[in-house]
């Protein structure tokens, strides 16, 4: 059967693509739209490396069918930095060395941004629970949490 024609908004830009039913949003972002920032770590919603926001809600793009993207608004890692500068979360990840290989990093940054939009003043425990769906093999999480807490403080104007 014919592919689905989907119109959607990604990082503020109106985007169109064709997809098969079984293609996920992650497949389309990476293979059709050239947005390879979101990564495939597990394809089963366990690792969070594919995290994006859909209509403001944090989701795994590997668990969203591309066809479901019709009329929805998405934010991916590519939309986090502005044209001129890095987002405070990105700066703090760099300053606190919250990344090594970096493959989990896009997912963590998108998830952190969603956390701080939901709760600008999380405790460390709240941050850890929120980020339980983002797995990192390299860092041991400690520096990531430090970066998250510091970014939160800066964004609160503290």
């Amino acid at each position: 059967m014919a592919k689905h024609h989907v119109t959607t908004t990604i990082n503020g830009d109106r985007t169109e693509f064709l997809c098969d039913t079984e293609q996920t949003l992650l497949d389309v972002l990476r293979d059709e739209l050239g947005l390879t920032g979101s990564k495939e770590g597990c394809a089963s919603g366990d690792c969070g490396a594919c995290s994006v926001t859909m209509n403001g809600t944090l989701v795994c793009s590997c668990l969203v069918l591309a066809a479901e993207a019709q009329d929805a608004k998405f934010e991916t890692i590519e939309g986090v930095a502005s044209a001129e500068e890095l987002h405070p979360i990105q700066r703090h990840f760099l300053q606190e060395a919250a990344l090594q290989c970096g493959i989990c990093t896009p997912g963590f940054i998108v998830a952190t941004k969603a956390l701080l939009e939901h709760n600008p003043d999380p405790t460390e425990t709240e941050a850890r629970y929120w980020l339980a769906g983002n797995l990192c093999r390299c860092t041991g999480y400690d520096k990531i949490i430090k970066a998250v807490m510091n970014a939160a403080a800066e964004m609160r104007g503290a």
Partner: protein
Amino acid sequence: MADIEFAAPRSVREAVKILAGAKGKAKVLAGGTDLLVQLRAGMVRPGLIVDIKQIPELSTIKKGKKGFEIGAAVPGAVLGANKAVLKAWPGVIEGLELIGSTQIQGRASLGGNLCNGSPAADSIPGMIAADATCKIVGPKGTRSSKVEDIVTGPGKTSLKKDEFVVSITLPERPKKSGDAYLRFIPRTEMDIAVVGAGVSLTLDKKGVCTHARVALGAVAPKPLLVKDGAKALIGTTVDAAALDALAAAASAACNPIDDKRGTIEYRTKVAGVLARRAAVIALERARA
């Protein structure tokens, strides 16, 4: 491999028509947190996927005389933010909210968790304890079913061909009532229940339990309603003796399997422990 068709109907009537007219197997898509994983693994091979999230009734929460009517596709993130439901039925919410991660909560729903039919589903014991019912539609019309009658075995439901769940109703909450759900997993998050226990109880003015429902997950081929557990609580002040009787009844009701997550002996013991602890939390909430 044959292509899979996709439809996103905007009304219940349209959805029923599409499902009834499908050639081959059709799968209903709510949050997709189980379906997409199964699709990827080749565990299901549908000819059609029907996305029900564009149907208003499936994605809204209504408060009426019967209680809270929750659309089957409402995600955990949305339901958890509904203060009214959270106040009335915290045990149901905490069951749903234990599923997966924040990302999963952005999509996973009560309807999906129920109809996926896992005996270890985290939202089901709380719903059973709440005496929840669901509204089902199909080609023959609309019908109602108790949540405890939906799952019939691992991955199997009592839904007939081309039927799907539109909404789940949590009844009106009497005064001096409380519910709670607890589960045991070896990790802190992101795991499947080894045992899940949901308890709901109501007290009278003197603090005597007049009504109770106890449900267990992951200890039988389907989630269990433990009638003897309720009997252990009703007519008591939920004192130590009643809690002992509850724990014993919970363990006695177990019929679990040995697998990598837990042995029969372990699950049976933990079922008693969690039922007791959930009852204590429900009691505190009822007294508050």
